[in-house]
C-alpha cells in the first residue's frame, strides 16, 4: 500500500529504514523537509538516532564524518550547503568513512537561485563520493537504503550521495511504497566499524598525515574502492529487486531495444522524456528511439553504457546536462559519455551532441525531448552538428533555426552551416495528446492548498490511481498567489510524472485571483473543463463576465468555502475546497475517499470532515444566493415589493372635476 510522500519525506524514510544513528543537519532549501521529518521522528521517539543541530553544513559534514567512523550517519543538503561541505567530504572519501547524503539538487549561483539543476552535484564530482541520481521519491528511498549497502561494503567503504531534482522531485507528492523495516533489516545489515574509536583496548588514529609515497598508494586504493562501487551497485540493485520487487541498475533504458536515436540524462527530468519517448516510439518515419536515464553517475559505468549503446545500434546520442562544466569542452555528463564511447567503441560508437537545459529551475518538458530526438535524427542522417553544447529555450540561440535573420549575424556566421542543414521535423514535434487528467489550484500562500491537494492525492492513490502533486515553490511571502498541480494517471502499467499543462479542473481558492493580471486562470483549461471558485458573493455569471469566458465550453462552479469554514470555526478553507473538488471532478469517487480522509485530515478531524462534506454539497454551478451567515434576510417577495400607498393616482370626484374639464 503506497503512502503519499514528497521526495524529501521519502528520503527521510530512507534514512529511517536504514537505521541511521547520527543525523546532523543544517537547513537549506529544497532539502530541509527531510531533516525536519527526521527531527520530528527523533523528538517524538519514533526513530532512535542522535540528531545534531549543526551551525553550518561544514560542521554537519564534519559530524557525519566523525560519527560515521563509529555508527551509521547521514545528512541532507543542497546547493551552497553542499559546496560548503565538499571541503570536509573529501576527508570522508579519503578517510574511508561510509556515511550518506541526500541532496535536493539546486542551482549554485550567483545569481542566487533556489530552484533545481545539477550544479551542486557536478561540483562534488571530484570529492570521491558515490553519486546516485534518483528520478522520484520511491527511487530516492530505495537508493538511500542501497546506498548504505554499497558504501559499507568492505570493498568500498566510501560516502555516497543520493540526488533528487529540487522541487519537481523533493516537493512532489506521490505514492511511495515504504518497505517493511524487518525486510530492510535483512537487506541492510547493522553498521560495523572496522576500526572503532571507542575501543580502549585498541586505540586508533584517523586522519594521519601522509607523505608522498604512502599518499599516492592510499589514493590509488581509494580510486579502486570507488571503482568497486560500480559492480557493488549492480549487485545491491539486484538483491534489492529480489527482496522488494523494484529493480535498479546503473541506468534505465526506456524505449526501443534497437534505437538509432538516444537521449541520455540524469534523474527526474526523465519523467518528461519518458512521455516524449513513448509518444515517438513506433511512429511512422521515426527510427527506434530510447531514453538513457543514467542512475549511477560516480563511479561512471562507462563500459556498461558503451555496451548498451552498441547493442542498440545507436547512431546518434544527444546528452542533456542540467549543469555546466565551466571552461570544459563538454558538460560533465556529455563529457563522461563521450569519453566512454571513445574508449570502448572507438569510431564505431554513436555521434554525441550535447544539450544544456533545465538550469535554475527551468522546466525540461516533453517538447524539449521531441526537439532532442529530432536533433539526434538530423545527426544520424549525417548532417553536421555543433561540437559545443546546444541550449534549450534560449530564444537567440535555438536548436533549430528556420531563417537566417532569426539569430544574430555573429551566431549565424558561426553555426549557419549547421543550422542550414538541420531541420525541425513535424513528425518529431507534433503535439502530444494528453493522456492524463490534471488539476491546477491557484491559491494564496498560507491557505492550505497543498494540504488539500496532498489529501486528494492520498485518496486517489488509495483508490488505485497514480497521482502526483507538485506545488509551485518560491520565495513568496504569505499571501502571494501560488499554484499547486495534481496529475492523475490512469495507466497503471506506466509511470507518468510529467504534466502536459492541459487542465481538467482549475481551482481558485480566492476570488480575487480572478483579477490578477499575472495569472490567466483560463490558460490551459481544457475544452469542457471546469473552473471552481471559492466565493461568497460572485455569481457564476459575474465570474464568466470577469474572465470573458464567452462561448467557450467551460463549466464554472462556485463554492462558499469561506462561509463553510467560518461556520465550522475552521481557520482554513482547504477542507471545504477539497470536498468541492470531489464534486467538480468525480473520477476519484467521493464515497471511498471519505474513508481515507477520516484517518488523514488535519485536526480538528470532525470539523475538517464536516467541511469536506459541506464543501461537496454546497458546490454548484447555479447562481448562488447571497450567503451571509444566519443574519441573511429571508423575506417574502411581497414584503420586498411593498411601497407606501400612492394617493396621487386615485381619482377625486369633486376636487379634480375642474381639472379634468379644463
Amino acid at each position, binding site marked *: 500500500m503506497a503512502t503519499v510522500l514528497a521526495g524529501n519525506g521519502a528520503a527521510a524514510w530512507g534514512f529511517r529504514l536504514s537505521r541511521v544513528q547520527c543525523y546532523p543537519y543544517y537547513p537549506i532549501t529544497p532539502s530541509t523537509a527531510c531533516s525536519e521529518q527526521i527531527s520530528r521522528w527523533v523528538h517524538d521517539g519514533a526513530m532512535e538516532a542522535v540528531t545534531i543541530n549543526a551551525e553550518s553544513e561544514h560542521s554537519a559534514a564534519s559530524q557525519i564524518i566523525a560519527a560515521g567512523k563509529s555508527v551509521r550517519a547521514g545528512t541532507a543538503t543542497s546547493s551552497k550547503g553542499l559546496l560548503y561541505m565538499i571541503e570536509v567530504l573529501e576527508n570522508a572519501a579519503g578517510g574511508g568513512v561510509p556515511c550518506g547524503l541526500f541532496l535536493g539538487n539546486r542551482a549554485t549561483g550567483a545569481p542566487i537561485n533556489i530552484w533545481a539543476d545539477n550544479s551542486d552535484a557536478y561540483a562534488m564530482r571530484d570529492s570521491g563520493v558515490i553519486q546516485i541520481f534518483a528520478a522520484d521519491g520511491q527511487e530516492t528511498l530505495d537508493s538511500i537504503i542501497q546506498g548504505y549497502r554499497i558504501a559499507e561494503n568492505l570493498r568500498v567503504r566510501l560516502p555516497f550521495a543520493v540526488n533528487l531534482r529540487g522541487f519537481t522531485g523533493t516537493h512532489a507528492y506521490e505514492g511511495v511504497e515504504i518497505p517493511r523495516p524487518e525486510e530492510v533489516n535483512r537487506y541492510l545489515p547493522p553498521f560495523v566499524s572496522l576500526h572503532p574509536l571507542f575501543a580502549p583496548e585498541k586505540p586508533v588514529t584517523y586522519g594521519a598525515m601522509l607523505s608522498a609515497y604512502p599518499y599516492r598508494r592510499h589514493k590509488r586504493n581509494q580510486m579502486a574502492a570507488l571503482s568497486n562501487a560500480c559492480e557493488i551497485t549492480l549487485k545491491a540493485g539486484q538483491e534489492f529487486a529480489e527482496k522488494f520487487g523494484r529493480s535498479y541498475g546503473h541506468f534505465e533504458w526506456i524505449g526501443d531495444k534497437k534505437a538509432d536515436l538516444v537521449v541520455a540524462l540524469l534523474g527526474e527530468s526523465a519523467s518528461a522524456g519518458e512521455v516524449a519517448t513513448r509518444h515517438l516510439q513506433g511512429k511512422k518515419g521515426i527510427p527506434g528511439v530510447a531514453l538513457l536515464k543514467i542512475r549511477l553517475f560516480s563511479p561512471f559505468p562507462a563500459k556498461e553504457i558503451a555496451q548498451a549503446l552498441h547493442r542498440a545500434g545507436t547512431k546518434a546520442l544527444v546528452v542533456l546536462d542540467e549543469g555546466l562544466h565551466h571552461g570544459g569542452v563538454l558538460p560533465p555528463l556529455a563529457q563522461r559519455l563521450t569519453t566512454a564511447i571513445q574508449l570502448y567503441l572507438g569510431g564505431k560508437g554513436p555521434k554525441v551532441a550535447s544539450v544544456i537545459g533545465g538550469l535554475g529551475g527551468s522546466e525540461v518538458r516533453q517538447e524539449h525531448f521531441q526537439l532532442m530526438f529530432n536533433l539526434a535524427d538530423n545527426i544520424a542522417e549525417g548532417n553536421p552538428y555543433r561540437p559545443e553544447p546546444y541550449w534549450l529555450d534560449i530564444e537567440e540561440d535555438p536548436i533549430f533555426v528556420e531563417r537566417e535573420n532569426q539569430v544574430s549575424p555573429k551566431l549565424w556566421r558561426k553555426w549557419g552551416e549547421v543550422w542550414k542543414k538541420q531541420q525541425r521535423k513535424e513528425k518529431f514535434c507534433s503535439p502530444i495528446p494528453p493522456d492524463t487528467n490534471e488539476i491546477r489550484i491557484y491559491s494564496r500562500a498560507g491557505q492550505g492548498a497543498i494540504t488539500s491537494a496532498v489529501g486528494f492525492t492520498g485518496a486517489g492513490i488509495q483508490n488505485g490511481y497514480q497521482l502526483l502533486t507538485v506545488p509551485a515553490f518560491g520565495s513568496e511571502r504569505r499571501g502571494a498567489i501560488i499554484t499547486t498541480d495534481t496529475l492523475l494517471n490512469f495507466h497503471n502499467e506506466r509511470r507518468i510524472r510529467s504534466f502536459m499543462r492541459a487542465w481538467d479542473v482549475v481551482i481558485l481558492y480566492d476570488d480575487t485571483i480572478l483579477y490578477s493580471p499575472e495569472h490567466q486562470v483560463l490558460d490551459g483549461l481544457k475544452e469542457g473543463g471546469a473552473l471552481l471558485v471559492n466565493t461568497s458573493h460572485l455569481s457564476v455569471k459575474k465570474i464568466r463576465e470577469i474572465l470573458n469566458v464567452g462561448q467557450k465550453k467551460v463549466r464554472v462552479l462556485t463554492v462558499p468555502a469561506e462561509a463553510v469554514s467560518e461556520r465550522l470555526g475552521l481557520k482554513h478553507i482547504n477542507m471545504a475546497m477539497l470536498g468541492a473538488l470531489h464534486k467538480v471532478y468525480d473520477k476519484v469517487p467521493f464515497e471511498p475517499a471519505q474513508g481515507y480522509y477520516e484517518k488523514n485530515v488535519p485536526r480538528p478531524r470532525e470539523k475538517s470532515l464536516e467541511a469536506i462534506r459541506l464543501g461537496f454539497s454546497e458546490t454548484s454551478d447555479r447562481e448562488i444566493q447571497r450567503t451571509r451567515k444566519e443574519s441573511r*434576510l429571508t423575506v417574502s417577495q411581497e*414584503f*420586498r415589493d411593498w*411601497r407606501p400607498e400612492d394617493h396621487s393616482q386615485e381619482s*377625486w370626484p369633486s376636487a379634480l372635476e375642474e381639472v379634468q374639464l*379644463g
Partner: protein
Amino acid sequence: MHPDLVLRIAGESGEGVITIGETLCKIAAREGIHIVTFRTFPAEIKGGACMIQVRLSERRIRYHGERLDFLICLNQEALDENLPDLKEDGVLLCEAECDLSGEPPGLTVYRVPFERIATREIGSRISKNIVVLGTLSHLLGLPKNKIEAFISQRFARKGKAVLDHNLDALQRGINFAEQHLDKKDSYKLPKGGEQKKLLMTGNEAIALGAAASGLKYFFGYPITPASEIMEWLAVHLPKVGGAVLQTEDEIAAICSVAGASWAGGRSMTSTSGPGLSLMSETIGLLSMAEIPAVIVDSQRGGPSTGMPTKTEQSDLLLALYGSHGDATRVVLAPISVSDCFRVTALAFALAEKYQLPVIVLVDQALSARLETVDPQLVERLPQGSRLCVEPGDGNQFARYRLTESEVSPAALPGTLGGEHMVTGMEHDELGNFACDEETHTAMTVKRFRKLAAIENDPLAQDLCVRWGDKEAEIGIVTWGSSAGPVEEAVAVAKNLGISAQAIVPKILNPLPHEELKAFLGKVKRVIVPELNFLGQLATLLRSTYRIPTIGLTKVKGVPLEPSEIVEKIVEASATLNVRSRKLYGRAG
C-alpha cells in the same frame, strides 16, 4: 355685556407690560375665563416696542382676536403703533402725556399720568405697571383683593419692603382711577365658568406633557423661541428623577438624546429651525438605527437666522424630509396649548412604540402664548412603550429582527444576552453592516412599513379637527397654530352666508389619509392657509393627492388673521360656478 374682550397692553420692553398682561390672565383664569394671548418680543433684550394681547372669553377659543376692544398704551410710540388695530368704538387707556391729535372720534379715551404717579408719588419708575393694574382694576372691574393676593404671591419672596411698595402702587392706581376716571364704556371682564382654569404657555405645556409622559433626560441648546422648554425642565425634571443638560450645540443635544434613548431612558430635545437643520443628520441615524426620540421644533422666521422672535410655519418640509436618504420619522403639529400637552405625550408614545424619531412642530406664536387649559388635561394620556425583551437564550440577539408588526424587540444595554450593534450603516437583522441590495431593500421596507402601521394605530386616530358645515363645498386645510384663525374665519363666513368647512390634521407624517380623502372628496375648492411663503402644506397636499389648491400664505412674522381667510373664502365661493383651471393654476 360682551362675551369676548380683546385687550392689548403696549409699551416699551422693560416697562412691565407683560407683567400686566400675565397678572390679568392669571386672575381671569382663576375666575374660569378662557384666555388666549399673543405677544411680540423685541429683538433687543431691553428697550424696543413690546406688547401683549389678551383675549378673554366665556367660551373655548383658539385665537387671540383680531380687532382690539381695549388698548392700553404706556407711551407715544406704542400708541402710534397700535392705535390702528383698535375698533372704531374701542377703549383707549393711555399715558396722559400722549398726543392724540389724529384720534378717531368714536373712541372712549382714558388718560392717566402713569409715569408721574410712578416717579413722583411712588418714587419708582418700575412700579408703573402696578399703577396701570390698579387703574385697570377700576375700569374692568377686577376685584382688588384678587390683584392684591396675586401681587403678594408674586413679590412675597422679595421681602416685605418690595411687597408693600407694590401694594402702595396698586392702591395709588386704584385711587387715581376712582378719583379721575368715569367709566364711560361697557367693557367688563367676561363671565367665568365654574371651573378654574390653568394658565400656561405652549412651551410650558410641551415641557409638562413631556414630564407627564415619563421624560427622563433632556438635552438641549438654547434657542429662541424654544429655550423655555429647557428652562422649565431644568427646574422641574430633576424633581422627578430626571436630568437636563445644556450641551455645546444641537448636534450634541440630539446625539446625547440618541445615546440616552438607546440606553433606555425617555429622552427629548427642543430647538428651532436652525437647530433642526443641524440635527438633520442625526435624525437619519435615529431612523436608521431605530431609536426613539422626541424633537420639538418651535418654528420662527427663516431661513438661516431669520427672525428669531417672529412666528412662521416654514419648517414643515424640513421636518418631513430633512436628512439624506429615505429617513422615516413622524411629524406632529399641535394646534393649541392644551394640544401641545397631549401631542407631546402622543409623540413619546409613538416614538417608543415604533422606535423612530418624532418631530413636534409648533411655532413661536404657539410657544409663547399663554392659554387657559383644563386641569383634566393629564387624564387619559396616550400611552406607548418600547417593546423590550430579555433574550438570554445564548443566541446572538437580533436587534433588527423582521417581525409581523415591523417593530423589532429591543434589548436595553445591560440586559443579559442582548449584546448587539446599533448602527447608522445599513445592517442585517443582527446589526452587522450589510450593503447588499436585498438587505437594503428589506430594511428600508421595514422602516417605512412602521409608518403605514402608525396610520392604523389607535393612538393616531382622531387626529383631525373639523369645523363648519360637513356638506360645504369650500374646504380649508391648515395646520398648527393657524387652526385658530381658520376656526374664527369659518364662523365669520357662516355669518356672511358662505358655507365653508375646515380640517386640521395634527399628524403630518404619515398623513391621516382616510380623513383627508373623505374631506377632499367632498369639497370643490381647497384653501390652504399657512404661515410660509412656499405653501409647504399645499405642496404636500398637491403632490400627495394631485389636487389644485388655493394658497393663502403669509410671511409677516405674525399669525394669520381671520379676515384674511374670510377674504379667500369669499373669493373661492365666487369661483364655485366658473369652470376654468386657470384660476387655480398658481400654487400657494
